[in-house]
């Protein structure tokens, strides 16, 4: 199916805008990703806010594609996908608010640099100063929510061979389908890179002795490790049921992140505050 086939009853303009709206945020978000202390396309002060704003646009591409296809399967798939993406975006948002709280900045470069300070970094064990350790529950919530946000296995209920086929992409062929596919993988890399920046020290080496290796290589290695987890999840876990996915998002992850937000806020007011 390399030919681009447009369904007769589809809304032609929206049908072509759908894939573009899906891949565009995954590309545009890279503008604020820092690869080193001064290596960033746009060092925006509200970088984290910009990133959340851009990535939240992606759901519109899915809805538009599902609606414009004029197919029951595509529409039901789009509803499922958009509900799932919006649900897990909340958990991701709250998880990033916790990081924002401990870093005291929305600037992604500042967030990485705040992880280069602390007793671990003073001992040359940089990885002990990164956010993953004190914010471990949030890190786990972020990674799992990232998998769900990208509609990846085991949360890939937007596709189902026996019911809604390829979900919102079912009427797409050729380059239209390829763009949806590319967007899924570009989002995986973006979410992984964000996890590296927010929780795994960004461009910092895990041990002070390895600091001679350029920062962008460390960021690449960390991103690769997180992306590998996505592949590992796909190869290891059975698919969740849709109601289980929604329950996990709304009844477990959102409460956990909210409680941990309060815990960290109280922690920061005590003499045991490690983020001074």
């Amino acid at each position, binding site marked *: 199916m390399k030919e681009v086939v447009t369904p007769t009853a589809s809304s032609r303009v929206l049908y072509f805008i759908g894939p573009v709206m899906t891949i565009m945020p995954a590309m545009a978000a890279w503008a604020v990703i820092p690869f080193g202390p001064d290596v960033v396309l746009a060092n925006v002060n509200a970088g984290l806010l910009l990133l959340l704003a851009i990535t939240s646009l992606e759901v519109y591409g899915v809805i538009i594609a599902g609606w414009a296809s004029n197919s029951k399967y595509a529409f039901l798939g789009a509803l499922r996908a958009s509900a799932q993406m919006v649900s897990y975006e909340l958990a991701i948002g709250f998880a990033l608010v916790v990081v924002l709280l401990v870093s005291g900045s929305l600037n992604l470069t500042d967030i990485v640099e705040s992880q280069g300070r602390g007793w671990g970094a003073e001992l040359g064990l940089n990885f002990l100063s990164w956010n993953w350790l004190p914010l471990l529950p949030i890190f786990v919530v972020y990674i799992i929510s990232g998998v769900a946000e990208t509609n990846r296995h085991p949360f890939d209920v937007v596709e189902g061979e026996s019911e809604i086929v390829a979900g919102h992409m079912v009427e797409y062929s050729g380059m239209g389908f390829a763009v949806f*596919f590319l967007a899924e993988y570009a989002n995986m890399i973006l979410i992984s890179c964000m996890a590296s920046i927010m929780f795994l020290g960004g461009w910092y080496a895990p041990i002070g002795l390895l600091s001679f290796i350029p920062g962008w290589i460390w960021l690449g290695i960390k991103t690769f490790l997180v992306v590998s987890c996505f592949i590992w999840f796909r190869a290891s876990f059975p698919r969740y049921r849709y109601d289980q996915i929604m329950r996990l998002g709304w009844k477990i992850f959102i409460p956990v992140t909210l409680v941990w937000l309060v815990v960290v806020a109280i922690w920061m007011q005590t003499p045991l505050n490690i983020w001074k």
Partner: protein
Amino acid sequence: MNGMLEAITAQGSSVLGPAWPVVWTLAKIVAVLLPLLVCVAYLTYWERRLPPRSSSS
């Protein structure tokens, strides 16, 4: 590194004049997006190759 970038900026602005900021911004966008698209391509390839190989062994 910074010296090299400054030399490129000076050379570029002298050759291209007012068009240089646009060209430089586009060059930076390509420098970020090109490796990203290569990563996406190889990630897709790797995902199609790795799990079947590990499950067959």
